[in-house]
């Protein structure tokens, strides 16, 4: 199952990496903090770690560290526009309750 990108999200990631000038792909995971337990982590990847799990979606590599996987397994990342705002949105089947801001969540 792993983690996937929508085609639109993949196109944007590709574009960002091209403009940035380097990067193997993106890292998606969680870290523990925030009002509701856990927070997403979304970063460019310059160096891959040995234990990283690598998924590929529409030509983009998504790296997930094994500890994060249980929390994000099955997530689809989409890129959306809401008014003037734009950015990545997650469809995470593991989430029970997210705090209102959407930046942190509980599983």
């Amino acid at each position, binding site marked *: 199952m792993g983690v996937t990108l929508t085609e639109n999200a993949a196109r*944007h*990631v590709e574009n*960002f990496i091209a*403009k*940035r000038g380097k990067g193997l792909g*993106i*890292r998606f995971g969680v*870290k523990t*903090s*925030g*009002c509701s337990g856990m*927070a*997403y*982590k*979304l*970063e*460019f*990847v*310059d*160096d891959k770690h040995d234990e990283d799990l690598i998924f590929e979606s529409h030509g983009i590599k998504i790296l997930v560290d094994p500890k994060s996987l249980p929390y994000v397994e099955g997530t689809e990342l989409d890129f*959306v526009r*809401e*008014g*003037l*705002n*734009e*950015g*990545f*949105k*997650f469809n995470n089947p593991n989430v029970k309750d*997210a705090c209102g*801001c*959407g*930046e*942190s969540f509980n599983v």
Partner: protein
Amino acid sequence: MALLQISEPGQSPEPHKHRLAAGIDLGTTNSLVATVRNGIAVCLPDEHGRTMLPSIVQYRADGDVVVGQSAAQAHTTDPKNTILSVKRFMGRGLKDVIHVEAMPYDFVDAEGMVRLRTVQGVRSPVEISAEILRVLGARAEASLGGPLTGVVITVPAYFDEAQRQATKDAAKLAGLNVLRLLNEPTAAAVAYGLDNASEGVYAVYDLGGGTFDLSILKLSRGIFEVLATSGDSALGGDDFDHRLFCWLLDKARIAPPSGEDARRLLMKAREAKELLSVCEEAPVRASLASGEEVSLIVTRDDFARMTEHLVRKTIAPMRKVLRDAGLSADEVKGVVMVGGATRMPHIQRAVADFFGQEPLTNLDPDKVVALGAAIQANILAGNRKDEEWLLLDVIPLSLGLETMGGLVEKVIPRNATLPIARAQEFTTFKDGQTAMAFHVVQGERELVADCRSLARFELRGIPPMAAGAARIRVTFQVDADGLLSVSAREMASGVETSVLVKPSYGLSDDEIADMLKEGIEHAEEDMGARALREQQVEADRVIEATEHALEVDGALLDDGERAKVEAALAALRELRGGVDHAAIRQGIAALGRATDEFAARRMDRSIRTALTGHKVSEIEV
């Protein structure tokens, strides 16, 4: 749900801790807002996809305030209430504004800054600029999905204290937290990533709508330093429009129109100018309300020829800025082009010729300043833990204090890097002096009268001491935004006072340029004038001291001795009125010789007095 962005490796923000920051290019003609998103600086568009916001504010009779494109449409129909290029009025008095007579506004010459009477009442340039900043701030918040932590706003490198303060005030009024004011050319260099480039010296050539700025930047070991700045705030793309407009009138043989016709034709001129940057020729067609028709073709060569003097006006500052930096043109490693007007091919050619290399034009010259500001804002907001940046700017004109005789004592020299603090010690001039007045000036000349007055303040409560005994330490501090505060402290007693220099209005760049030029031209003359003033001050001091001594201790002299002193005194008074500093110096020396014996006797007496229980401070020497 909040929308997330991709961070740099290891830089994911803590939830709720990501600090939203934006960079704002508050231009004379156009303003933009940019941010760093997904690791890349981008200009933020409005809901119609337009990134540039014309810096135009319309005050409508119905109470609405309209900013940008919609206001631009009103500028032919409602000129009095539609304010263009408000940046030119920031921190300026009416007399500092160039071409006032050609402007359709109802100016109110208020103290300090000029104001404009609109249908909604009298508005200051600060309030008008705040309207522009408010729109850009709201756009950024809507685009980033949250409140802004802070913004970096760019200003021309030449902006003086008053203009910088006015810009900060406008931001405050718009509800924005200013992380930093950044010089426009510096921001451009940041956008080009010159900070990461190999070491070397770079020039930034910024020709916008209304201002021309030049900077020489030096990059070494990650430190980004502005070596020198120069420019002309009364030169920009607008002047090219104006020149073409005059040429059109001349060619079409029509009298200078006014009101709407003039505006329409000026707009046509501008369109033609912009077209000529991509095409060899441009048509100009307009039917005027007067019934006259204009139908002409302008070629690129015509345009280059008629605006050659304007292009040339940018050359002198190029020479000067190199001279200030102590460099020759071939030592410049790269030239960055900024501002929409640098799209004109003959400008690019002139710059290439001067520096002997093709300038950098791969970033959009309209956006480059905003992009650099966004990068800087992102760092200042604390979103890049890995970056340690040092951006050093310089002072455009020396800052100093008036000393006796109207002379300037420079405290911070021109081109000193910011932020900077310098202290200098001064002393009292008279016995028992308990207050000291300070006059802060800016300029390169030796005499106060030739410099610009910035502020005056007084230090009171100095304990009475003999002249020259008090030690008053004056500290000048200029922060990273270029704002000056001055404090004075009497070292023995600790009495202290300070001012934040918020001058009533600023220097125009023309004035700055003139003052610099005069400073160089008059260097020799100034030295003569300075020497004369110094001798006059010294003569006054000696005359006063001698008169005072004769008054209180005249009994120590016999008639013959007294006559000799009086004669030398009269001779010096006579010389003091003249212009020969060498003669005055001799007169002072002569009086000194004539009073040698007198002084010795007074000294003896003073010591005796002191020994009989008087305080030292009461002793007159």
